[in-house]
């Protein structure tokens, strides 16, 4: 009962925050409302006993991704009026995408097709005490190869992103730390033997 009330409260906040992400005039406010969305979804996952997923969502998306997102959004000098001008022309596409997502959700949740049978069982399965351990066991045994494949794809993608954006221009005052560390006294200091001044 209490959990149901909590679900509706957080669900309402989630929808409100999601609308705010789209409608907010200031891009920084949009990003912050997206943080609220992530937090709210994490709470809803906690209500479903998915503690690992909930905390990981906060850790990865709120803790790292959104910080970098805010970083970029704050540095950008966006003209909001200019961005809003073209908004109306995207309506058909937006409606089509939203329509598809709603259709898929109805299929899964209401009609129980497209893997809906598995979903129906999910709630009735008694989860083991620590669902982090359960997830880990499945991920490293049954799905070991898919998990490693996903990891390799992510690694390649991040290396590719760095290679694509790395530009070195001429004349930059970059320090070669290895050369600094490897320097010897003889390279910098010249000892000169010279006769001392004669006392008069």
């Amino acid at each position, binding site marked *: 009962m209490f959990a149901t009330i909590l679900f509706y409260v957080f669900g309402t906040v989630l929808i409100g925050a999601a609308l705010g992400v789209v409608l907010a005039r200031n891009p920084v406010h949009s990003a912050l409302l997206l943080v609220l969305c992530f937090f709210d979804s994490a709470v809803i996952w906690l209500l479903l006993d998915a503690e*690992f997923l909930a*905390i990981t969502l906060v850790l990865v998306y*709120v803790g*790292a991704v959104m910080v970098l997102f*805010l*970083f970029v959004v*704050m*540095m950008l000098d966006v003209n909001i009026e200019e961005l809003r001008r073209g908004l109306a022309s995207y309506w058909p596409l937006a409606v089509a995408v939203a329509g598809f997502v709603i259709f898929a959700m109805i299929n899964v949740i209401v009609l129980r097709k497209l893997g809906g049978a598995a979903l129906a069982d999910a709630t009735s399965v008694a989860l083991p*005490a*620590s669902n982090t351990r359960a997830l880990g066991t499945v991920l490293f045994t049954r799905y070991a190869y898919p998990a490693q494949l996903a990891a390799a794809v992510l690694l390649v993608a991040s290396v590719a992103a760095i290679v694509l954006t790395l530009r070195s221009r001429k004349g930059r005052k970059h320090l070669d730390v290895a050369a600094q560390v490897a320097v010897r006294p003889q390279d910098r200091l010249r000892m000169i033997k010279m006769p001392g001044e004669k006392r008069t």
Partner: protein
Amino acid sequence: MWQWAPIRDWLSQLITGYWANPLLTAVQVLITMICIILVMAFYTLAERKVIGWIQSRRGPNRVDLLGIPGAAQPFADVFKLIFKEIIVPTDANQFLFRLAPFLALIPALALWAVIPFSPEHVFANVDAGLLYLLAMTSMGVYGIILAGWAANSKYAFLGAMRSAAQIVAYEIAMGFALVGVLMAARSLNIGEIVRSQSGGPLSWYWFWLMPLMFVYFIAGLAETNRAPFDVAEGESEIVAGFHVDYSGMAFALFFIAEYVNMITVSALTVIFFLGGWLSPFQGYLPDDNLLAQPGFFWFGLKTLLPMFTFLWVRATFPRYRYDQIMRLGWKALIPVTLVWLLAEGLMAWFKVGPWKHL
């Protein structure tokens, strides 16, 4: 020894009914928070005294408390800050400017929910405690970047951007160091992590995971924006960084958050690497000896060591340059943790150290 039982029994006689349990927890949380804030207050005094001694000065010595010169300095500071006006710049984002100090302080205090003070006392004995800690530490950065952005000042903004990049970089090293702890303890529950270290000082993880302990502590220094990683504040370059436009209690909240975070990182270093509430005499003295008992006393005593190191490091090292910070984080600390994870794998294979009962 420090026990909750008498206080809890006394309170449960006062409060009965449906709301008894939440209210009781709330009272305990309140008491703990007041204790943490008090420790933090005296920590600021200790910082000024210790750095003073290191620099051959006396430190604060004008406000006496119980005859100790300078001991009432934190309270004098608090009263000064309370009576100062809180100024909100005209062009600042009013809502976010006021929200930011709370976003800095709340995660700092929320972290204490999963920290076990003694074998019996922990607020939330959750299975994913370690993940919760990582998630909450990464939340603290929002207070800083929002403060820097909302103030609408170039210096504050520079400080915020530096801090964001630095915290995201060192979070990875910190996370990997904790993966090492997790490998040794084979549990995400903080209480279990401490319990798995039982058996005297040599079976605490500082010995087997020493590189990870240093990485964790250095990453902790960087995450709390302490010297030598205090480029986010950088008094000599960008005045005071992200909190340059804050005054009075609004500034004090950032200050409290920073010091509470330092205490938290110290407490966590003790929990992960120095055996938490376990006694250092365990295994050397008979089990029924008072000194061999685990308890809050040992946890508190051991926490003072990293807390002192924070101050010692601040008085010793000059501030890093920004590119040096990034280099240390990405090219030194992360490879060290990765190599040690491999070494831990080998140790587990050969069943040495924490893995001997595997």
